[in-house]
């Protein structure tokens, strides 16, 4: 077997076997290792450090999520409007499907692959603990989601300031959008990663997460839609169908932020019904995230 160039001295033609050298440098320990895993997983979610093929989908999704925002801003610049046609939080629910696709396709990349190739026991033979592993992976997936939504929000925000819209107003609404983005990045993600961590098969994971998100969204849409069509034109819309939204993690976040920041109008508006609704919706969101985290810890305890 021939040696690689760096071990083939050009001038002498003699190979100097330098023998084994130990490592006496610093060992940065558990925290550093967990951060390294987080960074590696975050990059992996966008296909960085992986094959060219695996970059296609995440980059495509990032493009699809951001390009409409660019177009909106471009139109606003040309026509000189006094208000963006879409609010920040509204934009996020509009690209909800794209974000779901990203979640469904990349959560199994972070979780199922390690199970499938049995890399998990190898990680556990390193200084990090099981809890560190779960935190790093969960954190990486949530951050990947957040970045995906942050990109168009920033485009809209910077664009609106360029057009010369009211700074205070825009900043407040950008903040609402940001809150919504954080919630979107936590609540649906937490459920998706639990599903991803149950199966070593990536395909199953993708299908199960997409199925779960699609079915719950559809059920919520049907229930709310039926309720609104059964009442007459002049009657006030009943709020009880809004409780069905609790089934869908995405809808839950949308309703919560709509009610919290008093966003959205019209009969289609999803919102947590009243003060009690706000409380219950918040509790359910917290329970989903905390419960999923505990389930994940349990999942990895026996490996």
């Amino acid at each position, binding site marked *: *077997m*021939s*040696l*690689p160039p*760096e*071990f083939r001295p050009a001038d002498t033609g003699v190979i100097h076997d330098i*023998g*084994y*050298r*130990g*490592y006496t*440098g*610093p*060992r*940065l*320990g*558990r925290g*550093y*290792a967990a951060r*390294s*895993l987080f960074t*590696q997983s975050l990059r992996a979610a966008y296909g960085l*450090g*992986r*094959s060219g093929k*695996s970059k296609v989908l995440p980059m495509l999704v990032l493009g699809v999520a951001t390009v409409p925002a660019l177009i909106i801003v471009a139109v606003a610049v040309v026509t000189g409007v006094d208000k963006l046609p879409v609010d920040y939080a509204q934009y996020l629910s509009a690209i909800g499907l794209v974000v779901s696709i990203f979640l469904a396709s990349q959560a199994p990349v972070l979780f199922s*692959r390690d199970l499938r*190739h*049995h*890399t998990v*026991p*190898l*990680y*556990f*033979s*390193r*200084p*990090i*603990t099981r809890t560190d592993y779960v935190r790093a992976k969960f954190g990486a997936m949530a951050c990947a989601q957040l970045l995906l939504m942050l990109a168009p929000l920033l485009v809209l925000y910077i664009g609106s300031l360029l057009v010369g819209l009211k700074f205070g107003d825009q900043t407040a609404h950008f903040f609402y959008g940001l809150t919504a983005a954080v919630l979107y990045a936590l609540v649906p993600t937490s459920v998706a990663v639990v599903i991803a961590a149950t199966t070593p098969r990536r395909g199953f994971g993708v299908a199960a997460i997409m199925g779960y998100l699609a079915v719950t969204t559809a059920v919520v849409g049907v229930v709310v839609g039926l309720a609104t069509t059964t009442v007459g034109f002049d009657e006030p819309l009943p709020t009880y169908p809004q409780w069905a939204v609790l089934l869908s993690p995405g809808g839950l976040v949308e309703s919560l932020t709509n009610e919290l920041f008093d966003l959205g109008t019209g009969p289609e508006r999803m919102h947590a019904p009243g003060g009690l609704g706000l409380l219950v919706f918040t509790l359910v969101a917290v329970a989903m995230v905390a419960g999923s985290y505990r389930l994940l810890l349990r999942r990895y305890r026996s490996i």
Partner: protein
Amino acid sequence: MFTRAHAHYVEPVSTVIKTDGLTKRFPRVTALDQLTVEVEPGVVGLVGANGAGKSTLIKILLGLSPASSGTGRVLGLDIATQGSAIREQVGYMPEHDCLPPDVSATEFVVHMARMAGLPAAAARERTADTLRHVGLYEERYRPMGGYSTGMKQRVKLAQALVHDPKLVLLDEPTNGLDPVGRDDMLALIRRVYSDFGISVLVTTHLLGELERTCDHLVVIDGGKLLRSSSTASFTGATATLAVEVTDHPEDHGLDASAAVRTRLVAAGLSVETEGPRILLVRLAGDETYDAIRDAVAGLGLGLVRLEQRRHRVAELFTANADGAESSASTDSTRTTENEGSTADVAAS
């Protein structure tokens, strides 16, 4: 190399692994039962049939699974409370495949080095060094999915060594390798201690491999310690030679094997048969080789095979149980035993 090895041993750690009454009970089985063992620096073989508790012991030593009772120390660190510190100083090569196929060996080993706490630059440097030491060159930049079993085993070994541990735990490192690959791997394992100064605990169910590699053997069965002693004292009594001869060139009626057997028995050797053609001769010393040569040549036959047999642990156990000699065992029992151990291997 000498300074390196020296640096390892001036440290106060004279015992690499020390367990005291280590017990692990699962709801239905006791995987480890009052295991008290001490392992010194060197290459140590951990021998046991499948399900003997080898993997459980490794898990407990890495601080990944709490013991039901008993205590243990690895490199002087307590397994119950200092798991993270132990894992920083210990390398682990799992038995099963653990390599993502779409990543190159370099990327993977760099990542695992960082997971052990090495800064990025050091991780890259150590990865290049370690992959070279295990014998992986240009191919290290290719995705690992296309690697042969031998190359995969080398990468698995490299990731266990990349952070320059003081001890590596190797779980069945020769599994799935062909005889040449197995010999290479065993030589490499030997070098890990002799050249790199890293102590090795290696598990296997093939005793023959350990004879050549290990200084010390620890045998466990059913979670209990059967024996812990130097390799020489272990295998001396059980070495056998497999002998196969050609038919007689002219006298086709002669049963060549039986004739050789008669001569060898007459020469005072104990001989068993395996199948119709192969004789198993207990190795009593160098003169055994001479006796076989003389017997075969004296009959005018050709020697097809003369090889040292690799013992399975199961055979060692039966030999221990039956006493010193079991030459009375017939062909049929021999065959059943073999089938039994083949099934064992397949199940692993």
